[in-house]
């Protein structure tokens, strides 16, 4: 079982270079509102995260992902279903 906290820590490292300006990252940080990512940057980030965790992330999760915490939750679900 992967813990959300552990996934979040890895997500912070992966998303930090994508932030338009240096900001403090937290579970409630918004990908679009606070980090300023456009749709293409979100796609690039997803690809990088897929390669890092060695999983496929369906695009269908995107409407449910607003914050880094949302992202980590979806990743946790995918990682745990891949393990089971």
């Amino acid at each position, binding site marked *: 079982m992967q813990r959300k906290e552990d996934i979040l820590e890895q997500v912070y490292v992966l998303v930090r270079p994508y932030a338009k300006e240096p900001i403090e990252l937290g579970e409630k940080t918004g990908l679009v509102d606070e980090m300023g990512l456009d749709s*293409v940057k979100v*796609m690039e980030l*997803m*690809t990088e995260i897929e390669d890092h965790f060695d999983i*496929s*992330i*369906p*695009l*269908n999760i995107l409407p449910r992902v607003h914050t880094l915490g949302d992202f980590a939750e979806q990743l946790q679900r995918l990682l745990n279903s891949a393990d089971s």
Partner: protein
Amino acid sequence: MTSLFKKFLPLEKTHAELVADSGVDPFHIVVERVLSATEAIINGRQMIMAGTNNYLGLTFDPECVAAACEAASKEGTGTTGSRMANGSYAAHVALENELAAFYQCPAAIVFSTGYIANLAILSTLTGPRDVILLDADCHASIYDGIRLGSAEVIRFHHNNPADLEKRLKRLGDRATHSLVVVEGIYSMLGDRAPLREIVDVKRRYGASLLVDEAHSLGVLGQNGRGLAEEFGVEGDVDFITGTFSKSLGSIGGFCVSRWPELENVRYAMRPYIFTASSSPSLIASTRKALQLLYRGSGLRKKLWDNATQLYQGLAAMGFNLGPEISPVIAVRLPASVGETTAIWNQLLSRGIYVNLVLPPATPGGGPLLRCSLSAAHDQGQIDAILDAFSEIRDQLHLHA
């Protein structure tokens, strides 16, 4: 101002900055008069049009124009109805039969645009239990189609069959319920899909394959059927979509399949049902253009001669181009969006129109000057395009 417009304010700001930086508004280009398949008047000036996707130059073909005029005269300017109601004329059905014969397929469906063809097929063919695996660089119409549908959607790295295989493998048994989507020629960089390798992967995992031949119809293959014909893998491609608005010089779209059951999908596709069918003149010119395309290996040769000459000329000047020779030639400049826009405007002032493509619509993020060649370009026009780019090369201090 209603609050609904507030979310578009960043677009207004970006647009204003672009105009201020480059001294030109690239989003309000008006073609004041069309002179031929390769020439038009823009800003009061005669242009060589090198960004039109008019690959075979058939928009002014006398036979196509005559067919369109005759159809408008005999059948009216529009059908005013859906294919499912009063909008299926004998000519629409004839075109479907001709497309099926051209592709040697048992099933063909004609749509009102190429965009609608992808929207309809991709939103309907796959359901909630299916998976679509699409190349990351696929066209917006493909992304929009899958967004309208209910399948699970996974992207794979552009032109990377190994990455596709990795993702099919992760699906396990679900791989047999998946549809792989690629394009014959990608619209931005002009590169082709590695279709033999993709076919090999999809066969091993029991997946289905859709190839969008929008930019490769009339351009690739001995008979102009596209990349699947060029690579000899048509028997392994389950669905081909395409458009009439490039090599065929009109407007419309299609899907053909080696599976006769495609016919059943017709009755379930909302983008097919809830829009008016193509006008008689469009269908008539498309049918004539398809005949010319079928006979037109000479046009394809001329197109490739032109493409090769421009690509090699630009490469020799030191420009950073797409990965292979193609009628779509993308030039990536070592310049910002504002600088690239100013250079694009400089080309206009030299009488050369190419497409300015700005991020986020470009692979890799930077701006592109996208040229597309036509069989109708003559030697003088190719030389003029090269001369104009040569000036830019000197200005940017590029070296071969």
